[in-house]
């Protein structure tokens, strides 16, 4: 068998990263998107997403990876992935209109015996219900894209989960050759299992985060410190070294919210018990407002029109995504304040707040502010000197949920440093230095 040629349809985040990873394993890859403007942008090496390592990866692929707006170019492919990002609304409900249309479009352009792989995340039942091509040559492959770590995860996958019409039948040899190139375990299973496996993974992640959030909040109140507890949990084999044990500001980014909404919808439709999911969603909403509550208690309650510095707008570091971003939510809610806002990748939008000044560098956000809030743990914020921050703030409060600043250095600089899962500064001073 000659080396298969691989196609990817849909050149947004998932498709671009996945295609680049396959090309990186030596395959010739045709990257198709029906939007000529996007293809033109990609051919100019102007990547629409921010991902560490992406430019280097595509550069290394050279002519093996080409971008085209001509769907007929997919005729040369033995395996075609359909991989557009699926949009979700504010309730986490996916809109599959575009995906389904693209699948039909691609099916019409592929050569008859080619393999189609749906890579976009779809709900249980979607892949089997498709009425294009032969089920024996139609697969669903679970994607585990992580914004900001997408290249790392796509080039070194932990395993492949593959949904098949019949898991007892061997995988198509051409598709198998692509997967084997990544030298990781391959788990074939029926379509519905694979579709639910992806959701199951995300539910486990949310469970870990919610446990951390619940106990971290308790830490803040009783003088315990979650940063001391989490490493102990990670050494427990039943929990694991890579468990999501960092407390956060609720679930953001859109994907986890979508999966929780899907489980609730399925549970409601089938009459299964899903109270746990409701509790996770409630905890997520509650934790999102942690910075607002901290600011209210420490600054807003005692000041008529405070000035607040905000560092970070994106929902996490190393991305331009602001979907469900706690930072944007906070900015909108600080209606009684004036704001100075900085993010290294995204310019704050004027419509978020009427009295907001976007600034050009991080320390400038501190100038004259009654408090600083570090909403996104961008790596460059870790280089900020607490003494420099203290020198430019008018107040002392730094709300730093992810402990971007060194806690000891912040305390030494005289800052009231408020961190998720850490005993409140007043509590620490009282208990450690009575």
């Amino acid at each position, binding site marked *: 068998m000659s080396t298969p040629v691989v196609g990817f349809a849909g050149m947004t985040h998932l498709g671009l990263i996945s295609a680049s990873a396959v090309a990186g394993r030596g395959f010739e890859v045709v990257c198709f998107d029906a939007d000529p403007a996007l293809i033109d942008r990609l051919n100019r090496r102007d990547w629409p997403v921010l991902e560490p390592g992406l430019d280097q990866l595509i550069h290394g692929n050279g002519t093996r990876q080409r971008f085209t707006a001509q769907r007929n170019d997919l005729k040369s492919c033995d395996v075609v992935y359909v991989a557009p990002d699926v949009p979700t609304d504010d309730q986490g409900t996916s809109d599959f209109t575009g995906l389904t249309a693209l699948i039909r479009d691609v099916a019409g352009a592929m050569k008859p015996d080619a393999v189609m792989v749906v890579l976009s995340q779809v709900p249980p039942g979607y892949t089997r219900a498709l009425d294009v091509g032969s089920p024996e040559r139609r697969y669903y492959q679970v994607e585990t894209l992580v914004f900001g770590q997408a290249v790392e995860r796509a080039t070194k996958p932990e395993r492949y989960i593959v949904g098949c019409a019949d898991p007892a039948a061997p995988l198509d040899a051409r598709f198998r050759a692509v997967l084997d190139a990544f030298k990781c375990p391959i788990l074939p299973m029926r379509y519905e299992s694979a579709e639910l496996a992806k959701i199951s993974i995300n539910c486990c992640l949310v469970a870990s985060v919610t446990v951390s959030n619940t106990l971290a909040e308790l830490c803040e109140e009783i003088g315990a410190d979650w940063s001391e507890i989490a490493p102990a949990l990670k050494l427990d084999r039943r929990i694991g070294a890579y468990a999501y044990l960092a407390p956060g500001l609720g679930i953001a980014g859109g994907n986890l919210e979508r999966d929780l909404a899907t489980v609730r919808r399925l549970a409601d439709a089938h009459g299964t018990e899903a109270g746990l999911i409701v509790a996770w969603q409630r905890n997520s*909403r509650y934790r999102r407002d942690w910075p607002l509550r901290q600011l209210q208690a420490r600054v807003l309650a005692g000041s008529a029109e405070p000035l607040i510095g905000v560092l970070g707008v994106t929902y996490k570091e190393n991305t331009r995504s602001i979907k469900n971003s706690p930072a944007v939510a906070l900015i909108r809610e600080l209606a009684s304040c004036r704001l100075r806002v900085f993010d290294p990748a995204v310019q704050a939008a004027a419509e978020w707040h009427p009295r907001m000044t976007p600034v050009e560098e991080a320390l400038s956000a501190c100038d004259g502010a009654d408090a600083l809030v570090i909403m996104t743990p961008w790596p460059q914020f870790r280089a900020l000197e607490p003494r420099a921050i203290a020198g430019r703030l008018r107040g002392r409060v730094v709300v730093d949920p992810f402990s971007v600043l060194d806690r000891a250095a912040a305390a030494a600089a005289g800052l009231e440093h408020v961190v998720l899962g850490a005993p409140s500064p007043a509590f620490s001073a009282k208990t450690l230095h009575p």
Partner: protein
Amino acid sequence: MTLSHANNVPQKPARVVVLGAGGFIGRRLVRALTDAGIESVALGSRDIDLADGAAAARLAEQLRRNDSVVFLAALTPDKGRDSGTLMRNLAMCRAVCEATQKVELAHLVCASSDAVYSFDTALISEETPSVPVDLYGAMHRTRELMLAAEAKAPLAIFRIPALYGAGDTHNSYGPNRFLRQALKDGSIALFGNGEEMRDHVCVDDAADLMLRVVLQRSTGLLNLATGTSTSFHAVAELIAAGLDRPILIKPSARQNPVTHRHFDVTNALRAFPSMRFRPLKDGLTAMIADTRAMAGG
């Protein structure tokens, strides 16, 4: 459902009619309206018995088109916890609903209670399911549903925990009773050791928040709470410390399990970013001074 404002910038309403104006919070609200230069009509149970069968028509006669109405009137548990009290409270609400169908109002603001929540959840927000466990809680929840279904006016509902302040007409367990006991007997009697945490709201702050809702013509649901809970024991200690003679705080054998209640007030912060609740210590100090002044020193 939380609050949203029809008036982003506060605007004086044409006129405010307060039902239950003779009550603990009603008196404060009428005074706050007067201080704000807002025309108000104060109606108490002596002016109109809302539980009476003819109350809807009589109330409608008192109302003008574009009035704002604040509905505070209710028979509280100290007036009775039986089904008769329940039915009278519902009759009052029915009269208000029917009156709104006769006269077009600009705004209807209603006082409900945190009794609509059970004690299964200690941290309460507006999203917490309403699961009343007694007739008083069921009454308030039913009134909320009646108003939502039948009142023809933009509707705001407050769920209010126990209020404190001078001139309380009730004598329920909490700051007001503690002060009366301390002044009369030199002691404060606690259930158990007063471990239960509650959100104690000063009645003046409650009136202030209601005034804000009136001015911004807000609609939706809001828990009227400070976000800080304090044990009854700590309240007793604060009251004792505020008096100029020794007060004995007396624990008792516990009859019921300890329950706590805290409020997540994030929605209130969003709705009214500039709202400031006075610290409990300051509020209790003012209550002691005002109570003494009302008693003639």
